[in-house]
């Protein structure tokens, strides 16, 4: 927690004196730790002189914020209109059976989490999936399966994609 505190202090310092900075502070915190823990929210509340309940209230309003740890790679599966009519549910089923987790969950090895999102803005390449910050379009079961395998291979070789 000591190192976490140092990191949080750094984030809080960056935004000190800036109006309406709560959301960017939470975003930076999540970026650093992967999720918003109860401790970090409490710590931020103390520093900003706000109640922890208010902070939790803001954080739970937005779908971006997570309150449990996530895997190394977050797979964002697009559930926008174009991807819906373009057959995203087939990819959903494939991912769920290949990784053995449901949306919102993380694999036992901590490598992948699945998250459903609204639209990734590449609708003419539907169905679309984003892994970390990389976007993959025109997917089929086969293609996505191979992409996931690439991540597994990289992991075995000690690399990060």
């Amino acid at each position, binding site marked *: 927690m000591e190192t976490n505190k140092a990191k949080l202090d750094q984030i809080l310092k960056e935004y000190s004196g800036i*109006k*309406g*900075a*709560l*959301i*960017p502070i*939470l*975003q930076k915190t999540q970026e650093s730790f992967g999720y918003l823990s109860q401790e970090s929210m409490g710590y931020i509340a103390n520093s900003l002189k706000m109640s922890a309940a208010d902070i939790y*209230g*803001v954080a739970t*309003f*937005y*779908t*971006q*914020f997570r309150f449990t740890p996530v895997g190394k790679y977050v797979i*964002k599966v697009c*559930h*926008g*209109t*174009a991807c*819906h*009519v*373009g*057959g995203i*549910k*087939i*990819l959903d*089923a*494939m991912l769920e*059976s290949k990784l053995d987790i449901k949306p919102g969950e993380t694999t036992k090895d901590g490598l992948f989490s699945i998250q459903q*999102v*609204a*639209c*990734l*803005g*590449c*609708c*003419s*390449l*539907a169905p*679309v999936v*984003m892994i970390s*910050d*990389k*976007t*993959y*379009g*025109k997917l089929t*079961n*086969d293609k996505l399966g191979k992409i996931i395998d690439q991540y597994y291979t990289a992991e075995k070789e000690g690399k990060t994609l």
Partner: protein
Amino acid sequence: MIEIKIGTATCGNAAGAQKTLEKFQILSKENNNILISETGCIGMCYQEPIVEIFASGKKFLYANVDEKVAEKIFTDHVVHNNPVPENLIAETENEYQFNKQKRIVLRNTGIINPEKLEEYIARGGYEGLKKSLAMTPADVVKVVTDSGLRGRGGAGFSTGMKWKFASDSKNDKKYVICNADEGDPGAFMDRSVLEGDPHAVIEGILICGYAIGANEGYVYCRAEYPLAIKRLLEAIKQAEEKNLLGKNILGTNFSFELHIKEGAGAFVCGEETALMASIEGKRGMPRLRPPFPAVSGLWAKPTNINNVETLACVSYILANGAESFNKYGTEKSKGTKVFALAGKIKNGGLVEVPMGISLKEVIFEIGGGIKDNKKFKAVQMGGPSGGCIPESLINTPVDYESLMATGAIVGSGGMVVVDEDTCMVDVARYFLNFTQTESCGKCTFCRIGTKRMLEILTRICDGKGEDSDVEKLLDLANKVKNASLCGLGQTAPNPILTTLKYFKDEYIAHIRDKKCPAGVCTALIRFDINDKCIGCGACKRACPVAAITGTVKQKHILVQDLCIKCGSCYNVCKFSAVDKG
């Protein structure tokens, strides 16, 4: 000097443009005569990755350039000056001509390098700002009013009038907000403009700031667009270096500071009052208007909020005059509009057309019609706030009033085309699921009304609908429409109302016959493998959940308990051995 330009917007990258870029970089490593650069989205997303070669005074546009094609283009064209006909889609000495299109908002996307301010300036960038600064603020507002520009974020309110209200508000502090939340799932024009031509938007914001008397602004951009945010930050930095942003811009008394706020994933934050609450660091809940933002907006100061595309139009209008814009379009809907074509359409991507051309021209002539030669069923416009327009109304002109008359809306400009394989009840349920999840919960009609409507639609899709459900849906829809607090609830029933109006027979088939005519609703369909199966194994490989078993050259078996009814087996089978019923 030969220039190789690769489209590396998110759509290009999703199709593999980074690999193409790397390939060209490796190939041209030791050649000082070759310049490799990046550009935004030229609009033909279905043919990405797209590459342009500029050689001997001519531009050559290539489509579907994967690593292999890149190698061929490099050897044949770049080195030996022989263009590669298989992938060549256009060549010209001037500007590309796009069938029936007129590019104002997209004037630079896919053409310039968005990370180079010089390239924007070389094409007339920041002329609009210079001209504005030489005029009085009131005259700038007048040019915008005369252009007839209406807000491109959905509601279509006159931009000039909105600016007038904000400039009439007396206060020492005012704000400009650019709405880049692009919440409509199925729309991506704002992303393309921000990624491909960020300065066009920044210039529009500055002109607005000068016109209404504001010296600070925000771009509120959704978090799902990391590249757009990166490009914006870079553009702001460059503009500051050139004194186009900051103190005493271009030696005048006008100063302006611009910030980026990253959204945190809430559709309702696209609504202006919710968006401002979110910038203030609160839960993004809408509030009643009046007071309108022009009177009391961000931190209770007068605020003008416009959409990305609206602001990109503004910079063009101020540079070229009101006439250059209002000569396009219809009497009440002036200028051009960008549409994002997606769904079951052949040429998916971005198109920009003069207002007033017909849906048919957009979908069939520019969009190339329906994929795999299937039958057109409807086009969904305006996302969760919009509606579905059937084939019988395909000649409707795209302008605010005509589209509104069909029950749909222009909205932000997303057009999702659906074919005979799409179930309209499922589409309505999809949108209600969306609005129900995104309802902020502040007002009862939206919070509970969307929930009840979703329950009814779900039971219809599950084959448990009752005869009275249609009546109940209509009754609820009208109440939610009239009594909700903000646009989210007021428009949430639109997908139901339009599908009920034009596709009632599909509802009836689900309710009375317990059938889904399009074969989508999983509870109402089943797949079976018949005796035509030769055991090729294609269906077994295609099944995402391993529900098909069997050995090669023997009839395969589908285990019904495992089947999720996705239709993958039905689609891959070349021997008509999968029955759908």
